[in-house]
């Protein structure tokens, strides 16, 4: 039982990470129906930026631990800056790589997104080199144990941040003017335009928020794993996108659910089958669920308009 609970915790922590990245995927998809392949790389860029910002603040990978309010302050500052920078990068990507293609053939923006993904990887490769780079572990990491089950501060951080982000996003989208504009643009771009919504800026904001979330995820993942590498975005993005689709793409709670589900499935596969089969099991479950519910777990089953 303790093992099962421990694996559940492991799965939820890993799943929280997927969910956090999936939120950005699902937002962008919801509004422009684009599989933004570069999103995973924006996430990696986020962790690279965090390392750079920490270095500017004098925090290096030497293993120094900064506790108390100072640590929290640094963490907050780094998260905010990384989110801001990633958001700007996201907006720039949208402006220069995607906007022109909004009415182009369906696959053109997809290929552009793949191109942008390569570009970002190339930039990171030349910035910090081809190897894994260390992420400073400057926050204390107390572990809490109960009945043979351990949970540490980092795992709590992942889960708390991802759930908080989801709730914040949900509130934002349903309660603010910009959020409503986003939903309207997602429903029908032309109609939204006619209603006086500035669709261009709404889409830009969507990319900003989605990419900023990726920046936050970059920090969380850096704290959690302690290293990062320029190619990490692919695997993370793949799982996050799977999570978004599993939950019903375009649906924020669905992205969360999908993320946790994939994390838990992975943990249980590693425990009860074997680590090498995790991807096979995850994707088989994905296929199975989509066959039964073609629009994902929480996705709306829209009948086609005839």
């Amino acid at each position, binding site marked *: 039982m303790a093992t099962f609970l421990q694996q559940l915790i492991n799965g939820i922590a890993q799943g929280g*990470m997927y969910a956090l990245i999936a939120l950005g995927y699902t937002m962008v998809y919801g509004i422009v129906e684009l599989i933004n392949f570069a999103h995973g790389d924006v996430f990696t860029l986020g962790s690279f930026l965090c390392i750079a910002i920490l270095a500017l603040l004098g925090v290096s990978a030497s293993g120094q631990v900064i506790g108390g309010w100072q640590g929290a302050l640094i963490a907050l500052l780094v998260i905010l800056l990384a989110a801001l920078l990633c958001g700007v990068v996201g907006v720039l990507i949208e402006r220069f790589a995607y906007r022109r293609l909004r009415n182009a053939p369906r696959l053109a923006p997809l290929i552009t997104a793949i191109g942008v993904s390569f570009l970002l990887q190339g930039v990171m490769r030349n910035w910090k080199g081809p190897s894994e780079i260390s992420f400073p572990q400057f926050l204390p990491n107390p572990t809490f144990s109960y009945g043979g089950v*351990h949970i540490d501060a980092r795992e709590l951080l992942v889960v708390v941040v991802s759930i908080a982000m989801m709730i914040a996003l949900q509130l934002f989208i349903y309660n603010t003017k910009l959020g409503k504009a986003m939903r309207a643009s997602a429903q029908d771009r032309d109609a939204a335009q006619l209603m006086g919504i500035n669709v261009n800026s709404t889409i830009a904001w969507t990319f900003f928020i989605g990419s900023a979330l990726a920046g936050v995820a970059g920090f969380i993942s850096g704290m959690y794993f302690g290293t990062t*590498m320029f190619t990490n975005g692919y695997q993370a993005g793949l799982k996050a996108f799977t999570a978004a689709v599993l939950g019903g793409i375009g649906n924020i709670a669905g992205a969360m659910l999908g993320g946790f589900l994939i994390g838990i499935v992975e943990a249980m596969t590693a425990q009860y089958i074997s680590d090498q089969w995790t991807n096979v099991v995850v994707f088989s479950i994905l296929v199975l669920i989509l066959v039964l519910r073609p629009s994902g777990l929480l996705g709306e089953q829209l009948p086609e308009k005839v």
Partner: protein
Amino acid sequence: MHRPLIIVVALAVVAAGCSQQSSQTSPAGSVIKIGIELPLSGADASIGVPTQYGAQLAIKQANEKNLVPGFTFQADVLDDVVGSRHDPAQGAKNVQTFGADPAVLGVVGPFNSNVARAEIPLSNSLQLALISPANTNPTLTKGPDAIAMRKDHPDQIAYFRVCTTDDIQGPVGATYEYTKLGARKAYVIDDNETYGKGVADEWEAQFKKLGGSSLGHDHLTSGQQDFHALLTRVAGTHPDIVFFGGNSSTGGGLLRKQMPDAGLGSTIYAGADGISDNQFLQDAGPTADDVYVTVASVNATKLPAAAQFLRDYQAEYNQPVGPYSANAYAAAMVLIHAIGEAVKGNGGKAPTREQVLDQLRQTKDFPSVIGTFSFDANGDTSNRIISIYEAVKGKWVFVTQQNFTGAH
């Protein structure tokens, strides 16, 4: 329709093809080319490029010291990365490109075992010497597969390697950890790649033979970063040693780093040369202590030549050596030496590839920066010295070295 476009493309293809030819100089000149065939871009670059530098340093020094009078050596470097990782098909094409250039008398490479599997039959067919600085998988030179790979010239091997194979490294490590560290219950993990799985299998077999028990053997999924679930499973079996077969880049360091989270902080962690680098120490951070690794070469500090090499490398490239730089240096040096001997045997004229191969096969007690070695009938190095290192306070500290005597 756009026919003209097709013509442009077709011409581009031909032009791309011919561009290679224009650079081909006839062997009549005094230039001898040494091919270097490694993964040099993408994520592989971190380990491929320092290896390339090792070989290039050897070529540069050979020219400076005029090791083969009348001839200058020139490096011809080809990358085998396609898309984002090393590609056997590209490796094979590179060997064919070298094969088409008569000035190339031998090749240092490849780095990866699956690339080697594509290149060994080719180099055998072309009778072009291929010396790998890094392939450690035993089945490349021994066993039915290896013999089948020499199909065109079964008795004339053309593939050599300067590194000791995993069937030696694995057992030496297992023996040390069983007898000296007292480990009895092991959990084996590998990265499910040729090298990692190979060395893990060898280690596990020896460990069991000695009387130890294997509690499980898991393979990682490529690209995985989170090992908490796997480690929780491992912790449930209460091992006293975790052996990892693989590289730092495939999760060796991260795995160690996450072990304390699962309550495995005080469990011994052991691996082979794939995690014997600085990358591991950096990834694992403070958890790197009590990690034991085997390295398939003599302790560099005990070899003056090695110390000199380290200084030269640092001076030339202004960066620390990679784990295979010295091997590449040794591989290039043994090739240059063989070419020199072949030149002598050919009356001072440029030798043929066969003559170079003949000399290589006869390599005996060649002194190098990784120790003195000969090539055996399979092209394997006679150097069977395995060093054992322990990580202490963020540094690899030499523990002992053993000369593997064979029986396992």
